[in-house]
């Protein structure tokens, strides 16, 4: 009685065991290939547009590369020049950090404030949402040209209006003390994307939380502090991280504003390169990087600058994300 199963048991591991293992391996292999095939568009994109440029950037940072001839190995010379000899780096770093320290909090607070007001609107909410979002759709170059025109110290309507009430307006984009605040105004005006995200988060805050807080006697400010802010804290984190990255990358607006405000046009042979005008106050790190790489045929050095930017932005983002554990609350209970 018991022989038959025993025979079965003995028979099963003999030949089919190998076959099964092979079959299992084959199935596993096929499954992996299927996964790979599905992942291949991403893998190709990642390799061609992400991994390769990243590795190249790091490699090029140890070379002199003029875009036209083969790169020359120069070891750490670019980094030595960057840290000890290039005096334009530090104003550029300062300008960029100014944006991170001043503009990012302003943008987050402004977007949050506008979104909060929009949640309170009783009538025409659709209209106001559209009006506040519209500037985000303006192309950056056109928006910058518009602001340079509006803030023109001689003919601009802003200084004209200030003059009517007896205030002599500043030189805005023509004054090193005012050029960054002028740029900040432009960037705050176009804060629509962040505002929409805040608006969605604010609408999502559970009503019952407000009701319980109200029953407990919490006023409007307390409700904002202890209900609204914790509930939307993941969105605040997101806005801070994205805002920081945008600030570290600011280029177009600074490029256009400085060139137009300087009032010179490119002519034959004239370098007419007004990047950073006035007095390097809008010379942000990416602007200097562009100038070195594409104007001064110094792409190896620009690559070294990019590596430093990568390290710094990694560090800043890491600090923000680590620090966020203390103040970001996720609805699922995670931190």
């Amino acid at each position, binding site marked *: 009685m018991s022989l038959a199963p025993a025979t079965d048991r003995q028979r099963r591991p003999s030949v089919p065991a190998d076959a099964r293992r092979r079959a299992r391996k084959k199935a596993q292999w096929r499954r992996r290939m299927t996964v790979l095939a599905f992942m291949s568009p991403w893998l190709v994109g990642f390799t061609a547009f*992400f991994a*390769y*440029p*990243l590795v*190249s*950037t*790091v490699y090029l940072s140890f*070379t*002199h*590369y*003029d*875009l*036209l*001839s*083969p*790169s*020359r*190995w*120069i*070891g750490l*010379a670019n980094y030595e020049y960057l840290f000890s000899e*290039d*005096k334009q780096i530090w104003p550029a770093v300062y300008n960029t950090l100014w944006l991170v320290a001043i503009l990012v909090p302003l943008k987050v607070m402004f977007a949050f404030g506008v979104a909060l007001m929009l949640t309170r609107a009783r009538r025409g909410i659709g209209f106001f949402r559209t009006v506040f979002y519209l500037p985000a759709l303006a192309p950056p170059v056109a928006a910058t040209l518009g602001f340079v025109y509006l803030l*023109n110290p*001689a003919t601009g309507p802003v200084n004209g209006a200030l003059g009517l009430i007896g205030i002599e307006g500043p*030189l805005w984009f*023509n004054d090193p003390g005012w050029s960054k605040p002028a740029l900040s105004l432009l960037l705050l005006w176009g804060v629509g994307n962040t505002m929409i995200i805040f608006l969605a988060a604010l609408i999502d805050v559970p009503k019952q939380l407000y009701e319980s807080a109200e029953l407990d006697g919490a006023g409007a400010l307390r409700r904002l502090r202890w209900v609204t802010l914790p509930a939307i804290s993941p969105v605040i984190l997101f806005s801070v*991280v994205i805002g920081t990255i945008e600030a570290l990358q600011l280029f177009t607006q600074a490029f256009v504003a400085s060139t137009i*405000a*300087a*009032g*010179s*046009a*490119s002519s*034959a*042979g*004239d*370098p*007419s*390169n*007004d990047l950073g*005008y*006035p*007095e390097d106050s809008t010379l942000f790190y990416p602007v200097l990087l562009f100038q070195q*790489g594409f*104007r001064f*045929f*110094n*792409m190896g*050095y620009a690559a070294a*600058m990019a590596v430093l*930017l*990568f*390290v710094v932005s*990694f560090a800043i*983002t890491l600090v*923000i*994300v680590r620090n*966020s*554990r203390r103040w970001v609350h996720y609805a699922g209970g995670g931190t």
Partner: protein
Amino acid sequence: MRRTTTALAAALFLAVGVGACGGTGDDDNSDKAAGAPAAKTGKLEPADLTLWVGFSAPRELRVFKGAVKEFEKLNPGVTVHVVGGISDDKLIAASRGGKTPDVAQSFSADNSGAFCGSGAWIDLKPYMERDGISDEIFPPAPRSYTQFDGTRCALPMLADTFGLYYNEDMLKKAGLDGPPKTASELTEYAKKLTVKNPDGSLKVVGFNPVMGWYTNTPASMGPMFGGTWVDDSGKSSLGSDPAWAKFLTWQKDLIDFYGYDNLVKFQAGLGDEYSASNAFEKERLAMHLDGEWRTAFIADEAPDLNYGTAPLPVDDDNRDLYGGGYTTGNIAGIPKRAEHKDQAWALLKFLTTDDRAMVMLSNGLRNVPTTESSAKSPDLKPDPKFETFVKIFSSDKTTTTPVTAAGSAYQELFNGFVNKWQAGRVDDLQAGLDDIDKQIDAQLANVEGGQDVP
């Protein structure tokens, strides 16, 4: 860990931008003078050539095409396709891997260092020797800005020269006779010709010496005091040549007469340089530094303006400099991967060394012709205001800026310093100039350093 990864991912996006622009370039350009010239024959093999030029206005392109048509008539079977609006960025991108034209023209003589030093444009010496063309046919300045480190990869194709434009009516009204010839006269004239509005703002500025505005740059104005850019050892000499400190002191004194902020505000209210609202054309400036091309703009946009042209005034203690000025210009060459080099050379030679072509281009574009013989050609359209610039160009006192491997980087560093100086934010001029010299030398050392990757 997940947060570290998030931060890393966010930061990665920043780094990728530059890397995407990277690559190690064309690896086969060890042979800088790729392609030796074929033996000279009477007739060119038929070919379809492409000529890239920076000019983009329809009028300018028509002029170019007219000159090219002459070439085609002389060389049956060779056709030339002219493409306008080409920037140096496009030239560089094409040199890195795209399809290059047979002949390329660039507006920026500052980039000769990159084109010649890298071998992106071929060395023209073998062709010039074969055809018995000496570079002595060009005055010293254009001869200098078309080569780098002993490689002549470009030829000058029309030049720009800078001089003084002055409003005859305003000078007459102020009782001033003829243009100023020295810096002190320029200051005196500028003060007399300045008119203020009732509120104290500037209505007409006698002469605006603010750098970075319109065509005012240390390069275009520096020759007034004869400042040199490099010393005999090739080091930056902005601090060691006293002419620069003297020039900047004179410039700042005149700025202080107006008040820097007042001038900035005045500038902000002026029209665009290359428009019919140009400040000199609108009579908001009594005297003005500008290039020879302005004569054509005025003829077109403000034909009733009563004005004159003259060389820029010079240092009172160095009056011998009078008559010279700054010149720079267009350069043209043959990209290394040009398909039809022999025919390309014939076209380049025609456009840059043939007096008929030069005169045709100069008359049409109102830029200065670049060979010494064409500058004296009786066929040049007569115009005394334009002739001033031809004379400045031919003067042995006229200078240009040095060509370096880093393009105009040294000028940018200096411009940045001058911007601070003129705004009154530099306490010690000499120390500042010495520091800029150090920065320029360090920058060039960084660009020129290193060895080829084995």
